[in-house]
């Protein structure tokens, strides 16, 4: 009967948990955005580190070379996990549509890359000087004099990242910030446990669980972007609206509800493909006309919703004008066989009147309905 040592139990389990998360990201996740790319990079880096860690125990079975390689990879490339964490966090800073292709905010990324390079240099030199680890006369693995200093350096780097994220948290969606920030807790706790139990790689286990939690959280927010139009989905609208209403007294906001005129006729006359294109065009127009802090989403079949920090009627109306102009522009230059027209209902959030998301939406809806009714009777009047 084989006796399985604890270090093998923990590393193999970590490998399996990471492997399943990686499998889910690679084969099942259909989103093609930068969140996913960096997340996947993060997971794969950890898989490599676990394999390296398993190799590092080869000295127990007499093979020092493999053990050396394993330790080198582990010590040298461990901070790359931090690099991917920073990159992933950066994709949530600022403008949200489909994630930043290459984050405009690169400070974290550069900072962690710098640290990773420094660490790698120290590791390489340490291979010859025994700074971080060495094998004694009996072939046993021993920690070197700078081992503790390195652990502290990584800890401080992680804390520095946390502080930076905390400072700029307002530029990230609240939900994304909390989870990205929380991600470091488990590996840090794991590292500290590792001090108590020498050979057991709790740090990687912490990462594995942390990444699975992040995956759970990211996936259950689910398709937050509508693939057809590129704007947010209705589900995310609910979350965002509740959030804004909660802070509505301190941070005023307004909403615009947009409805494509005669959408059903477009579908019937020109077919579903044309209808889809109309939706995509509308999504595009709205995303372009909205300002960077605004939240644009679909609301229903042919309806859209914008939440904005604008808090005066004048500014709101000029925003609507801007959308109308962009739409008119679009009509002139595109190759759609029909003209796109829209109706708007807009209102500023009033904490006295709008007690919950449904009430607020109903109020905007009524205004939209009013405008459609007026527009219809106008055109009918014009026809007469």
């Amino acid at each position, binding site marked *: 009967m084989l006796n399985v040592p604890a270090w093998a139990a923990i590393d193999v389990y970590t490998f399996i948990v990471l492997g*399943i998360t990686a499998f889910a990201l690679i084969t099942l996740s259909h989103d093609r955005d930068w969140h996913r790319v960096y997340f996947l990079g993060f997971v794969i880096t950890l898989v490599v580190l676990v394999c390296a860690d398993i190799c590092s125990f080869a000295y127990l079975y007499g093979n020092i070379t493999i053990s050396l390689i394993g330790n080198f990879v582990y010590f040298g490339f461990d901070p790359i996990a931090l690099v991917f964490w920073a990159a992933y966090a950066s994709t949530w800073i600022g403008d949200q549509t489909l994630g930043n292709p290459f984050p405009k905010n690169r400070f974290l990324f550069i900072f962690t890359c710098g640290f990773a390079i420094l660490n790698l240099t120290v590791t390489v030199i340490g291979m010859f000087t025994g700074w971080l680890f060495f094998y004694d006369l009996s072939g046993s693995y021993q920690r070197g004099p700078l081992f503790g200093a390195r652990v502290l350096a990584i800890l401080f780097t992680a804390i520095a990242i946390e502080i930076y994220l905390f400072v700029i948290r307002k530029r990230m969606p609240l939900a994304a910030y909390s989870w990205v920030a929380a991600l470091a807790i488990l590996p840090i706790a794991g590292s500290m446990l590792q001090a108590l139990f020498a050979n057991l790689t709790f740090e990687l286990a912490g990462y594995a669980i942390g990444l699975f939690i992040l995956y759970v959280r990211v996936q259950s927010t689910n398709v937050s972007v509508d693939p057809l139009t590129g704007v947010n989905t209705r589900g995310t609208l609910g979350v965002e609206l509740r959030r804004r209403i909660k802070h509505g007294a301190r941070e005023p906001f307004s909403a615009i509800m947009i409805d494509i005129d005669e959408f059903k006729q477009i579908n019937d006359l020109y077919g579903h493909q044309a209808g889809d294109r109309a939706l995509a065009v509308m999504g595009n127009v709205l995303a372009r006309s909205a300002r960077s802090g605004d939240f644009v989403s679909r609301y229903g079949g042919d309806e859209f919703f914008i939440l904005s920090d604008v808090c005066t009627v004048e500014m709101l109306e000029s925003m609507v004008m801007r959308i109308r102009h962009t739409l008119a522009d679009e009509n002139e230059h595109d190759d759609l066989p029909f003209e796109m027209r829209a109706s708007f209902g807009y209102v500023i959030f009033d904490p006295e009147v709008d007690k919950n998301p449904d009430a607020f939406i109903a109020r905007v809806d009524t205004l939209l309905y009013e405008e459609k009714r007026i527009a219809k009777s106008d055109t009918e009047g014009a026809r007469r």
Partner: protein
Amino acid sequence: MNYLASWVVLDVYSLILLGVCMYGSLRHGAFASDQRLHFSMLLFLVVILTFADIAQRSGMDDSNWIVQSGRAICFGFDGWIPSLWLGYAVSKMGRSVKDREKLPIRLWSIGALSYSVLNMVISIASIWTGWVFTIDASGAYQAGPLFVPHALGVLFSIIAIEIIIILHRKDMVPGSFAWVVVLPSLTLIGGFLQIMLGGLPLEITGTAVSLQLLYIFQVNRNVNIDFLTRVGNRRMLEEAFDTKIHTAESGHSFSALIIDLDSFKQMNDTYGHVAGDRALVSFAHVLKSTFRARDYITRFGGDEFCVICDITDQKALDDVVARLRANLEAFNMSETLPFPIGMSIGYGIYKPQDGEDKEEFRARIDSYLYREKYAKTRG
């Protein structure tokens, strides 16, 4: 340096993993209620088993009641794993309760439940009768005469469940067979490894890992599923079309139906969004009871549905459409909603031999749909 036993590592790790799965499944909107049931039962069971395992290995005196209970629970409850996996597999078979009451499935279910109950009774009784395990004169744990049958019982019952799943693979909802068949095998592999690797709690580990996979499977299915009606969404439709057109090249064609609800916008305006949503959900049920589990039922627009099925004969297709109209009529007569639901259907068989491609086929059925709609408006 401190020492940590491998079994502690495995059990604690399993508990944490199970905890994350539990958190994930409780998140509002993550799972639909039908998915949550089996997942929750399995989760609950494995968590109990893990605590019981920790109790029995805790190193206290073997005759201590905590250790004895832990042991009894470990032996007694792992026999429920096969039954729960069977229950999960059955939930993926057939679209309606009628399908699930087919005789063989009832037999398997009764068989599995009988085994689970028998195993549980025998294991718990062992505290007094010593069948599966016992305490000898010196107070140490000893395997009883039924120990080996117990172990074999769990393993063979999972193998039996796997065979049943494979036999019923054609009855499963598209895309679920691979998952349903793989997941119980992880418990099986864990069980074998447990025997070979000195009794480490690997059966529990295997089941915990399978629940992590199950969680991922369910969450990802949600990407392809319309949240309101629980049928497929546009993504599933596109994938279904691509798959079916691909197989059509090797000779098995298919048919598609596009169904549009009449006057839906007016219904929404008159009766409100809530009533409109209920109409959509009810209509989805009518579709599910008309078509088979293997057919792709999807909702791809506000009030538009598309069904893809394996019918290649025009008469059979006409019959199915007639049945759908009859089912909708029956639903309307039941007056569950304050208004009747009307529908227009465009349907046809995919004919690659006529040189049709995906776009032409869809345009063709679209045109049939519009024909019916205009026939209605005209008169």
